[in-house]
């Protein structure tokens, strides 16, 4: 695989096939944990870990798995890595594990991960699958960071827990509450679509 092709596999996840903004996958965690940047980042990294390792395993044993039982096999593989991520956070980062609650175990039903196994890793080489997983994860982390940065700055006046807005700023509490999550993501999706339309019409 040439470096250029590998780069392509990676870059497509950031924008053209961004799991959140373009494919509308993984919306549950995207909405649920983005009240604070630290939670968004932790969720992004945990998902990255699961996606990368699942893709590596699935792409290396794809020839052994009969197609009738492939979904069941993928689910077991994904659930295994999710458990590892969950136990790791509970053991070494108890505050993060507590504030993310059931959303770390719920990575197992994140459609991004199963979707990439079915659409990509089950058909491509280990190297390509790794690049694809890295790209998709980067796109997912990017989306989580954008959403959580907007929500935390406007909703609490802080970024990563540090005060960034002056004393004059009255936090928009609604932004860190559930309605803020829906409305912010809705506006971001519309923005993404508008940018896409602009670039297309220019071509």
């Amino acid at each position, binding site marked *: 695989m040439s470096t250029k092709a590998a780069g392509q596999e990676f870059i497509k996840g950031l924008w053209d096939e961004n799991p959140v903004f373009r494919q509308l996958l993984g919306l549950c965690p995207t909405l649920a944990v983005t009240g604070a940047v630290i939670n968004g980042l932790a969720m992004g990294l945990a998902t990255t870990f699961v996606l990368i390792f699942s893709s590596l395993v699935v792409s290396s044993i794809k020839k052994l798995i009969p197609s009738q039982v492939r979904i069941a096999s993928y689910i077991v593989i994904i659930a295994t890595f999710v458990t590892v991520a969950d136990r790791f956070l509970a053991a070494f980062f108890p505050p993060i594990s507590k504030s993310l609650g*059931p959303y770390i175990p719920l990575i197992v039903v994140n459609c991004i991960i199963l979707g990439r196994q079915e659409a990509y890793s089950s058909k491509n080489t280990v190297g390509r699958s790794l690049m694809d997983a890295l790209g998709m994860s980067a796109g997912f982390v990017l989306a989580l960071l954008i959403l959580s940065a907007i929500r935390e700055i406007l909703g609490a006046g802080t970024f990563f827990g540090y005060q960034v807005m002056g004393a004059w700023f009255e936090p928009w509490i609604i932004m860190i509450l559930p309605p803020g999550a829906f409305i912010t993501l809705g506006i971001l999706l519309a923005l993404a679509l508008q940018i896409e339309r602009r670039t297309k019409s220019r071509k």
Partner: protein
Amino acid sequence: MELVAIFISAILINNFVLYYFLGICPFLGVSKKIDSAFSMGLAVTFVMTITAVVSWVINHWILIPHELDYLKIVSFILVIASLVQLVEMFIRKISPPLYQALGIYLPLITTNCAIMGLALLAALRDYGFAEAVIFGFGSGLGFTLAIIIMAGIREQLDLADVPAPLKGPAIALIVAGIMALAFMGFVGMIK
């Protein structure tokens, strides 16, 4: 916690869609028509109630006594996936009309995070058997309520002139946000 409190809280206050953000995919995907939204809601309520029973039994009779806590995620997801298959086969045999109504929605439920979320939340909160069942049923009703309201709004929205980039999921999410805002009015009602 009392059963009534759990029930009301699951439907209105800690609504699965509007507070926990679980089951967003079917909520956005199957909410274009009231009829289909209703069937989806029924299917979810049905599977959620059964899941609550089965996951409780697995957790309390197998996982906890044998200290197999680390197998929770794997066993829950496998049980839910096979459960949905079983329910589908069962309904097809027992009641063809019901299968006609719910059939196509059942496979969609397997990867629905609301079902897995229900099993995990019930385990996390250490609910007893009756509490878990009420929680499952109530959460299903809460999902049904949210998806039907959403479908009602979207049917009207079809007639409105929505700006092009907002069409589709974007406006649906903003509507969901306003619904979540409205549902915040229920907060505190059981206190």
